[in-house]
């Protein structure tokens, strides 16, 4: 297990290296001058040159890249051009909001997906199955920029249950989590249904029923756990996507997460901050995928990592 873990951690290095390299090149290639954006048009050309020198943007891109890698090796992500704060501090300030929304969205998705997925598998072709299929289609096809305001209209304006937007109380979390969780619930629900349907047809389920277990108990106690492996894979991938933040959901609900920070950094051509944000997102994604892989062995004892 330890060997496997170390090998996976080793594999993370080239992935992250690739990500930072591509991001570094892309952000330097797209048009837009951070100095112009920072100082505005009215600044003198000499002043702009001065700042360019100070930010070391006057050096060849290769040199800048080398310096960036050197800083990274020392754990220094640099300083944001825009706020003049260390990039790491900027990111860490947004991490709690991002983690909270991601976790809450995942909980919402599971609360919807697991009961409906199990019910539709156990009662295939029933009204419940068709209804959950319809709901899944709805969840997948409804874009967040439409669902978010719709939820606000119903739950905030109509029923007056939750705040429209903002961050700080538990009430603020509900609508953005529902918005982000809905689409994911649809994917997980369909995935769980098809995976569970396969398991239900296995001999061990039939054997459990023959031993006197009710069909419901046989499914819930035995088949469900085995059907979760493909669901877990999707969950891992989806959670990675959640951590990178949903720009649209964060914008609608004024949620101060990593997604919005990344967009603001790109708009301001804040190179160190863009690099830091993307590195954080990539790191979260590979870590979540690693944890997902490790969880497989928990769910299925036959899976062993050597």
């Amino acid at each position, binding site marked *: 297990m330890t060997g496997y873990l170390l090998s996976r951690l080793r594999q993370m290095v080239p992935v992250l290296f690739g990500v930072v390299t591509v991001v570094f090149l892309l952000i330097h290639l*797209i*048009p*837009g*001058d951070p100095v*112009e*954006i*920072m*100082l*505005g*048009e*009215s*600044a*003198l*050309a000499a*002043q*702009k040159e*001065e*700042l360019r020198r*100070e930010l070391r943007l006057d050096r060849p891109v290769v040199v800048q890249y080398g310096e960036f890698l050197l800083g990274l090796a020392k754990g220094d992500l640099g300083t944001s051009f*825009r*706020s*003049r*704060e260390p990039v790491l501090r900027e990111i860490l*300030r947004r991490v709690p909001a991002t983690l909270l929304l991601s976790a809450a969205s995942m909980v919402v998705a599971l*609360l919807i997906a697991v009961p409906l997925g199990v019910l539709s598998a156990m009662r295939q072709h029933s009204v419940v199955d068709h209804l959950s299929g319809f709901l899944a289609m709805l969840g997948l096809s409804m874009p967040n920029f439409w669902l978010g*305001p719709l939820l*606000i*209209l119903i739950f*905030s*304006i109509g029923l*007056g*249950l*939750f*705040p*429209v*937007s*903002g*961050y*700080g*109380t*538990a*009430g*603020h*979390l*509900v609508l953005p989590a529902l918005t982000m969780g809905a689409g994911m619930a649809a994917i997980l629900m369909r995935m769980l249904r098809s995976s569970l349907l396969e398991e239900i047809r296995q001999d061990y389920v039939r054997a459990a029923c023959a031993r006197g277990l009710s069909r419901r*108990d046989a499914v819930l106690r035995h088949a469900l756990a085995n059907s979760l492996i493909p669901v877990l894979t999707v969950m891992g991938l989806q959670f990675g996507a959640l951590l990178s933040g949903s720009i649209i959901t964060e*914008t*609608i*609900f*004024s949620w*101060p997460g990593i997604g*919005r*920070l990344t967009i*603001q950094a*790109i*708009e*301001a*051509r804040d190179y160190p901050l863009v690099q830091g944000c993307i590195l954080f997102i990539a790191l979260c994604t590979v870590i979540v995928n690693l944890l997902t892989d490790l969880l497989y062995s928990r769910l299925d004892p036959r899976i062993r990592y050597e």
Partner: protein
Amino acid sequence: MGDVQSRFPYAALLLALAAITLSGCSPKPPIDDGTLVIALPGAPSNIDPRLATDAYGTQILQMTHASLIRMDAAGNPVPDLAERWEERSPTEIVFRLREGLRFHDGKELSSADVRYTFAWILDPANRSPHRATYGTIRAIDAPDPRTVIFRLSEPSAPFLAGMVRGIVPIGSRAAGYSPPIGAGPYRVDDFQQDSEIRLSRFDGYFGTPPAIERVVVKFLPDSNVRFLELAKGSVNFVMNGVDPDLIPAALEHGNLVMEEAAGSNASYLGFNLRDPVLSEPLVRRAIACAIDRESIVRSLWKGHADLADSILAPGFWAHADGIPAVRFDPDAARRLLDSAGYRDPDGDGPQPRFRLTYKTSQNELRRQIAAVVQEQLHRVGIALEIQSFEWGTFFSDIRKGNFQLYSLTWVNIQDPDIFYYAFHSGQVPPEGANRGGYRNPEIDRLVERGRREPSREKRKEIYRKVQLLLARDLPVFPLWISRNILVRDRRLEGFEITPGEDYTSVKEMTVRREKEAGR
């Protein structure tokens, strides 16, 4: 038992949801507690007056920081921290501070703080984006606690407009998101970047302390959400943040009212004068004649804009009267194009006289305007290709002169010296904002004189000539000036809408009691 266990988590979750619901919902709107809640369409990147450049930061600073002077609605300087000022000579300006000025922490505000604020901006090590504004300052003296003397290297008419800058205490660090304290009517209690800023009344304010004790400014980038917050009552004040399409729906809520006043943000069509087609003045005039601005204002702005004849708003002191208006006249446009040598090769056929590209940002309204302009130019035989880009890319192209036509808006013009910056031949980027590469020795001479001339009356005459010349040459075509629209709770009173979207008069606002508001 199994049933109870399986149902328990859901029962608990329902209870938790109910608890969250109860904790999350506010029993009454903030206006009932006398709290003013303003929504801004974006978050400021900085609220340090020495560094802030965006409109949102400036608007917050108008509530939290006091300057030596401020500008009234017509652009005239009026006292703020300074009770008076005088020009001992064109290069020596003396400000006399009011007595008993205090910062939010109770410490005295003196001339040394004023000197420190401007010296900090001028120090290259601090990388202030405002340093160029104060380039003519040679020395700042503070001979006594209430006197500040600015010595300039040369006469500078726009100098006074630059004195609208929040003063901070000596030793204030530029510390990221922690704003330095000020001496404005409100103090900052809490600033959550990307979320909101909470302000409370500063009782030691040198003027009359504000009637409204608490102000919350929320940063809401989504226009639908700003509308929904207004509808719910959790936001009660939005200036220029409700889409023209949504205003009628907002007013259906009995608690909201709309106020409208002339603005100063001038949208214009920019031409690249280095382009062989657009260098021809007849072509530029033809394009101007072919654009039906009135119909655009009526259909897309829903009437909330005024046609422009200059980049200066009509209420601004330096705006020239009698500028010949460009009227919508497609026949005249066709004739002008014919005389410029660009005849339509196949009459009403599909072939255009020539093709142009039009660059704009990704703002939805701007893209709609571009589509209408495209159709209108098509009618006179000009094929227009619209290219819309993310702001950074769009602006970078404009700065590099990589465009034929583009549309942008001048915001917050404080002084007619904008004409030097935007049209002097020496101000072609990277140095200034003459992006189209306009060159006219007469304009150069006038704008150079204008920035040195201390007399406002003489400056007005200089800039009148400048505006007439620009209306003749059309290096840019002024389109319209959007009106400032305030949607507010009907109980809020006392706010004066200025052309520059100024938030200074928040301190004059009051909340009318329910019974009075109902009358």
